[in-house]
């Protein structure tokens, strides 16, 4: 039996709330925004058909306060709630309570969220379902002899990780069997002094790993499809920065194998809606299940651009009880798409978050260019939430076209008043290793100095223009903002100018 949604509450903020609302409006569904104190003037509030206040600025008093959100949903008589990503999107209690109150939760059943949210449970379930996971010990090991046996089973290189804590303390990569015993005792020693716990895990060490994920959709009629992969290996501090599809690293054969496994993962947890199965792929192109994200992913537009499929529309139709609007064999992957995440942060200053008011804003547009954001000039960027301002996505007939287009689009993206990662993204896009497609998850770690340097570079003309304009603005001679061009006679050509020489540098 299918339902027909007439109004949807989006339990989220910023770009993803606006993204979901755009599709709702295209489907003739009214949209309800919720907002915290800091977000009264946020873009998602302006765009929504209805908007309700839900609490003070900190997330745990507003966007995470699901009782209030549910109360709003009931009073506003919505048919369904879309959780976006982050916040309550993977909260099993919320999903269960929404469903119990007679409102449709646009996402998988709370059991699937719970299973995939617990990494150990998920891993065990995957092993049971014959899904490849990174080989390693299930339980911490104290005995060095046991450890060696495990390591030999897994095959070198292996990674030794302290069971008692993180932060790299007690972590060791071991290349050969001969080095193993000494490495284990050292790791145990370090672990003991750091966490008062000498136990360690042994895990296969993946060389030059890639983070590649598959988008899947599952409906209530038993249909599950995958929409191909996204290559997400450009990361900084485990945060994705640039994503693309297709991945240049895998070929059609591996793609097909991974796609099948992604579908098996979804099947194994009775999945419903849109989800993402994340894999690690090593330099030998062996792939291992990493985790499943039981929600819409930040980087979903990359898949939308190459398939032409609106993932949010599919989510909504699936939640209404409809089958997926196409079959696996109908999907055509067309061209190449790249996404850059634009953060409010100062890349030159160790990526410190940047807050303030957006003074000037020029957004990129034109062929093959999409910007998912909720920005406008005059908007305040507050310290309360994730510093992502939006996502710029470009499409091209091939990777080179998409890349050149991304560089062009980034070049016309102008934000003043706060620091952003726009020029950092340009540096990434133009890095030779990104251009050639020969990168793995260590890209940022290896080339971070290159990137910062290329980001800071500017030519002499730019320096002179900046300096002159700054002096001009200080001297405030521009009282009359009249055009300087005389109507009576032609002004001397601008290009007839003295050659300039000799910049000190």
């Amino acid at each position, binding site marked *: 039996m299918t339902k027909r949604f007439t109004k949807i509450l989006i339990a989220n903020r910023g770009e993803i709330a606006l993204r979901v609302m755009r599709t709702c409006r295209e489907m003739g569904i009214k949209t309800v925004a919720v907002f915290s104190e800091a977000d009264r003037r946020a873009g998602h509030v302006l765009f929504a058909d209805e908007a309700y206040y839900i609490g003070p600025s900190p997330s745990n008093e507003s966007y995470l306060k699901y009782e209030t959100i549910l109360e709003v949903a009931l009073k506003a008589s919505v048919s369904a709630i879309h959780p976006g990503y982050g916040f309550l999107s993977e909260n099993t209690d919320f999903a269960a309570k929404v469903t119990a109150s007679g409102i449709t939760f646009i996402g998988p059943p709370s059991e699937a969220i719970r299973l995939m949210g617990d990494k150990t449970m998920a891993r065990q379930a995957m092993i049971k379902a014959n899904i490849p996971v990174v080989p390693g010990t299930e339980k911490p090991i104290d005995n060095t002899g046991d450890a060696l046996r495990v390591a030999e089973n897994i095959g070198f290189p292996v990674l030794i990780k302290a069971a008692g804590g993180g932060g790299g303390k007690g972590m060791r990569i071991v290349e050969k069997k001969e080095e193993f015993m000494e490495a284990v005792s050292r790791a145990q020693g370090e672990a003991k002094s750091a966490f008062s716990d000498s136990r360690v895990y042994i895990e296969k060490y993946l060389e030059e790993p890639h983070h590649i994920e598959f988008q899947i959709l599952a409906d209530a009629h038993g249909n599950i499809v995958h929409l191909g992969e996204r290559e997400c290996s450009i990361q900084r*501090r485990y945060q994705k920065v640039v994503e693309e599809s297709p991945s240049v690293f895998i070929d059609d054969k591996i793609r097909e194998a991974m796609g099948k496994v992604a579908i098996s993962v979804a099947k194994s947890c009775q999945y419903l809606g849109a989800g993402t199965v994340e894999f690690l792929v090593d330099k030998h192109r062996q792939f291992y299940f990493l985790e499943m994200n039981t929600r819409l992913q930040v980087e979903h537009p990359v898949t939308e651009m190459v398939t032409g499929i609106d993932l949010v529309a599919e989510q909504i139709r699936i939640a209404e009880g409809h089958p997926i609007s196409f079959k696996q064999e109908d999907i055509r992957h067309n061209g190449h798409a790249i996404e850059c995440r634009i953060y*409010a942060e100062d890349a030159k200053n*160790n*990526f*410190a*978050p*940047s*807050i303030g008011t957006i*003074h*000037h804003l*020029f957004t990129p547009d034109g062929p093959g260019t999409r910007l998912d954001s909720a920005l406008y000039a005059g908007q305040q960027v507050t*310290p*309360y*939430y*994730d*510093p992502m301002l939006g996502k710029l996505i470009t499409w091209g007939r091939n990777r080179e076209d998409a890349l050149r287009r991304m560089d062009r689009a*980034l*070049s*016309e*993206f*102008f*934000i*003043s*008043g706060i620091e952003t990662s*726009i*020029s950092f993204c*340009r540096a990434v896009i133009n890095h030779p290793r990104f251009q050639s497609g020969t990168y793995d998850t260590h890209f940022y770690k290896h080339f971070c100095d290159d990137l910062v340097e290329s980001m*800071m570079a*500017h030519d*002499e*003309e*730019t*320096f*002179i*223009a*900046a*300096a*002159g*304009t*700054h*002096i*001009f*603005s200080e*001297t405030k*001679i*521009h009282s*009359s*903002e009249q055009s*300087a061009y005389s109507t009576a006679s032609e002004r001397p050509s*601008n*290009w007839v*100018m*003295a*050659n*300039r*020489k*000799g*910049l*000190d*540098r």
Partner: protein
Amino acid sequence: MRYIIQSNDMKADLQSHSQNGDFSISMKDHDIPFDISLIQPNLYSVIVEGRSFVIAIPKLAGEEIHINGKNILLEIQDEIQIRLKEMGWEESVQKNAGEIKAQIPGLITHFFHQVGDEVKQNDALFLMEAMKMENEIKAPISGVIKKINIEIGSGVEKGALIMEIV
């Protein structure tokens, strides 16, 4: 007016001229006319020797100039500052440089040093959680930690004095 302007690896010694609404700068006797037009408050379209720039001039001193998608931080010495320097009088630019203040509200989660420790410029001082991310704050100058005003785990408002290096 004469200015010495510096940014990163570039430095220019120049004169500005304004006459009848026309503005130009000259460097080593070469005159460079500026065609400057305000397009939004604090935002200029600037054409210099044919090249077109869009330049946002920040409202606050010390902030970066935004130009064609790049940010440039300029150090500017005007005529008076240049003369003082030529006479051997350096301004004490580094005043208060050892006061570490919170740039944004956040939560202090870790200190790497104690009062009395010696630190070098760019040494990590403490970790601060803000906007859901952990930020490492580095020493702006070398010196000795004189004071730590905040306890681990406590939230700070923007502008709060966290520690002092002398």
